[in-house]
């Protein structure tokens, strides 16, 4: 190693006048950036170098680093800076970085948070995570190799996630003899590509992370380069929050209600600023009020701005809870329930179009379904490809339907109100990240029409409480037979009922659907919607569908009010149902004539916690029907 001295020798002021030094450092700003590069571009080495040069590494860590470098390093006797940042044991053994790691260092002007992301193809997930909070991207390129497929992919992902500042670091200049022509060619090549995907404002810097050239100070090896060093550029980039100037928006996180006299709305200001007396509108409800006070631990504030976590009180008692957005009264954000979105799939299991996922957008959590993608993006060529679904690391554009109106803004305008995650309802895994592009026109033009005869009126006229008795079980388990027996008993009790039968519905409403997983999901969604309309009309609905997936039964349960949904598991073992084989379907499935048959080559997910279980091995049809009736009475 040529130079071991610290580029950031401790400021003399620290020793002379620590109070003055600290005073000056209170005004430090913060920059979050992401480093992207292919496996051997020297990314870890660069980060290690930044930490080292800015004295973020202590002597004991350095001693450990020096001994590790000799033991497992890849740089001979020299310090292997990569060892500083390759954290987990598994990674050190494999010599690769497998997850996003965050690093910290500070210079005299700024604190930096670095998201260190691996360069492998299968970890788009990590890149997207790191890019989501970054203000700037450092794109590393090996001077010997130039712009690679991965370079383009990483740049595309950073641009997609809304990063506006790009720094092209052409690394390993020492290995090309600090040749200006090599640097210029790569910078030009990259600029052309960047412009083609809409990235503007690229700063290219020739560096050597290993040797320290142009990292902190201008390199003596490259007198032809007159631009800023890497650190100088990072220190100068403008970081006034881009959201600070827009109209006020604050998603309500938590309602602070210590006693009956105080009701404060706590949240992180996503955009704009606010002062007491400002007129605000609470969305999606739309009620207006004015800000009474910005409450804080240190006393009331005159003003607060984007990026600050505050508590507001309003002049009027209006409905406002977690998930609502308090916004500038004269310039509120949009409200919609159908969107076009760009989706990055992060789950191991592929996306299921039509399935209900939890969608978390700011502080709003709703159930949303994703439609079949309009197209998938090939991240290497940026071509649009046809796709039926998205698998891990897949990126595509699709329509998203929420079950309730969401307050939002296009992601290009607001990361806070345009970025969302999808959560699998079964596994609770975060399976996707999404960016809202715009709301669909049909959603903007479709409104709820208020009607004068309410659902309560409908039910009262029938003198009953609406229910959905949802029978689920294998084919041939006895769902239709038992449902029919239950309906006959209800009819004798003068109850108004309707039985929706799986086979019958497929002759009409759902005759366009087959038996693929996606079609089965859509089949259940439609039946759920029909059942919901019938409960609105005051009916007791009985449904007899295999409905093999938990997630879809849960989706229907959530469509209904309170405890109206009653899940009845007709728990007949496969062997019994197959032995009965009333319709001869099991035989066909076993012979391979029938694909996707539940229990044979398509799974049945039994209810975890059904409201009622009937067992047709131990019970007769009549006993099962009586058991169900006893459970659901009095129905008023």
């Amino acid at each position, binding site marked *: 190693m040529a130079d071991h001295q610290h580029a950031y020798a*401790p400021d003399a002021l*620290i020793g002379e006048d*620590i*109070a003055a*030094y*600290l005073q000056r450092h*209170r*005004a430090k*700003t*913060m920059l979050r950036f992401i480093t992207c590069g292919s496996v051997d571009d020297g990314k870890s080495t660069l980060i290690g170098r930044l930490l080292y040069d800015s004295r*973020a590494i*202590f*002597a*004991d860590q350095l001693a450990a680093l020096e001994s*590790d470098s000799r033991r497992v390093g890849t740089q001979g006797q020299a310090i292997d800076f990569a060892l500083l940042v390759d*954290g*987990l*044991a*598994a990674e*050190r053994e494999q010599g690769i970085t497998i*997850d*996003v*790691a*965050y*690093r*910290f260092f500070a210079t005299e002007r700024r604190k930096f948070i670095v998201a260190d992301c691996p360069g492998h193809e299968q970890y788009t997930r*990590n890149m*997207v*995570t790191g890019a*989501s909070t970054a203000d700037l991207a450092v794109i590393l390129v090996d001077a010997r190799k130039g712009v690679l497929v991965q370079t383009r992919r990483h740049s595309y992902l950073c641009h997609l996630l809304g990063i506006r500042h790009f720094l092209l670091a052409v690394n390993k200049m020492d290995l090309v003899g600090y040749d200006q022509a090599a640097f210029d060619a790569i910078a030009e090549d990259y600029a052309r590509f960047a412009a083609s995907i809409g990235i503007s404002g690229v700063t290219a810097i020739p560096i050597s992370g290993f040797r320290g050239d142009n990292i902190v100070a201008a390199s003596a090896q490259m007198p032809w380069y007159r631009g800023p060093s890497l650190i100088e550029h990072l220190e100068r980039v403008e970081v*006034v*929050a881009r959201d600070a*100037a827009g109209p006020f928006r604050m998603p309500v*996180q938590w309602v*602070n*209600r*210590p006693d009956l006299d105080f009701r*404060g709305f*706590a949240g*992180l200001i996503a955009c704009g*600023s606010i*002062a007491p007396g400002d007129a605000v509108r609470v969305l999606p409800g739309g009620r207006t009020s004015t800000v009474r006070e910005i409450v804080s*631990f240190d006393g009331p504030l005159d*003003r607060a*701005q984007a*990026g*600050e*976590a505050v508590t507001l009180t309003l002049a009027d008692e209006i409905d406002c809870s977690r998930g609502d957005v308090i916004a500038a009264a004269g310039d509120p954000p949009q409200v919609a329930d159908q969107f076009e979105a760009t989706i990055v799939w*992060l789950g191991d299991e592929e996306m299921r179009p039509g399935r209900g996922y*939890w969608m978390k957008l700011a*502080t709003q959590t709703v159930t949303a379904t994703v439609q079949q993608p309009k197209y998938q993006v090939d991240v290497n060529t940026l071509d649009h490809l046809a796709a039926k679904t998205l698998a891990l690391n897949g990126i595509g554009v699709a329509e998203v339907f929420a079950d309730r109106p969401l307050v939002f803004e296009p992601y290009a305008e607001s*990361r*806070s109100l345009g*970025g*969302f*995650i999808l*959560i699998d309802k079964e596994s*609770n895994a*975060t399976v996707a*990240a999404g960016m809202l592009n715009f709301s669909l026109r049909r959603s903007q033009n479709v409104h709820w029409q208020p009607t004068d005869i309410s659902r309560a009126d409908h039910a009262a006229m029938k003198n009953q409480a609406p229910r959905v008795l949802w029978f689920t079980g294998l084919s041939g388990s006895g769902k239709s037979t038992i449902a029919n027996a239950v309906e006959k008993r209800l009819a004798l009790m003068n109850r108004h009922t309707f039985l929706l039968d799986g086979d019958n519905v497929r002759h009409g409403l759902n005759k366009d659907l087959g038996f693929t997983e996606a079609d089965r999901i859509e089949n259940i969604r439609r039946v759920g919607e029909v059942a919901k309309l019938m409960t609105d009309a005051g009916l007791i609905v009985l449904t007899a569908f295999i409905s093999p997936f938990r997630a879809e039964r849960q989706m229907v349960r959530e469509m209904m009010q309170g405890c109206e949904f009653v899940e009845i598991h007709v728990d007949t073992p496969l062997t019994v149902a197959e032995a009965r084989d009333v319709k001869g379907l099991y035989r066909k499935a076993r012979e391979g004539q029938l694909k996707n048959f539940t229990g044979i080559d398509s799974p049945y997910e039994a209810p975890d916690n059904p409201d009622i279980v009937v067992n047709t091995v131990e019970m007769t049809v009549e006993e099962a029907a009586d058991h169900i009736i006893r459970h659901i009475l009095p129905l008023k």
Partner: protein
Amino acid sequence: MTALTALTHLQRLEAEAIHIMREVVAEAARPVMLYSVGKDSAVMLHLARKAFHPAPPPFPLLHVDTTWKFAAMYELRERAARAAGMELLVHRNPEAVERGINPFEHGALHTDMWKTQGLKQALDQHGFDAAFGGARRDEEKSRAKERVFSFRSASHAWDPRRQRPELWNLYNARLKPGESIRAFPLSNWTELDVWQYIQQEAIEIVPLYFAAPRPIVERDGMLLMVDDERFPLRPGEQPQMRSIRFRTLGCYPLTGAVESEAATLDEVIREMLLTATSERQGRAIDKDDGGAGMERKKQEGYF
């Protein structure tokens, strides 16, 4: 209207920590704040008071005690909880109490039984589904990759390969029965940030962070403070008074002091800025089985 200026790094870190705390409170059924009485805990507690003002923080404080903390820590513990208007829960692993587990005779077992097992017991006993911790990513390599919302299985195990992606400031707090979250509001703070914030907000910390003459013995290259009569002196050892302070606080027999004259916050920060060793260096716990010690402990359920 005043002109908009960029927030300072401490303002951004503060807002992020408050946002994380409110998110946990909004989404978890039964949160708790792990309170170790150290400087990071002090900052975390202060942030909680700010986040929920004028209400007291809507969760209790939990101190997983080993009975071997410095006396000055026990003293501040009670006072800090009272000042915040919060309930203070203290858990001591009954098995460790019974077996008299101590750092002098039991080595690594001391940390495992009092801290790792004790923490699991306390969380299970009270049914907490979310626990705030003051850990920072800059402390240690395996922490650098941990999420802000870190998931633990029903047996409190951490699997670094199954962490949930965390994008923007959207945290997925959904749990299955038995699972729990460790939430780290100070993830993005560094040691210097913590000190600067303590100074800016005038947060009370244990006096042991400031230099004063204290009785110490030098043992295995560490300066150990003789905090009470339980400290077994080896033949020939005689406590001497020296001006020392601590950069990190834990069990007194396991925590190395540094010789120092830094008796004020300014001086402590100056010393920190000019010093050449990291703060965890004074702790015996990270040195067990090489560099992977902390990662392994976390997989077993250590905080």
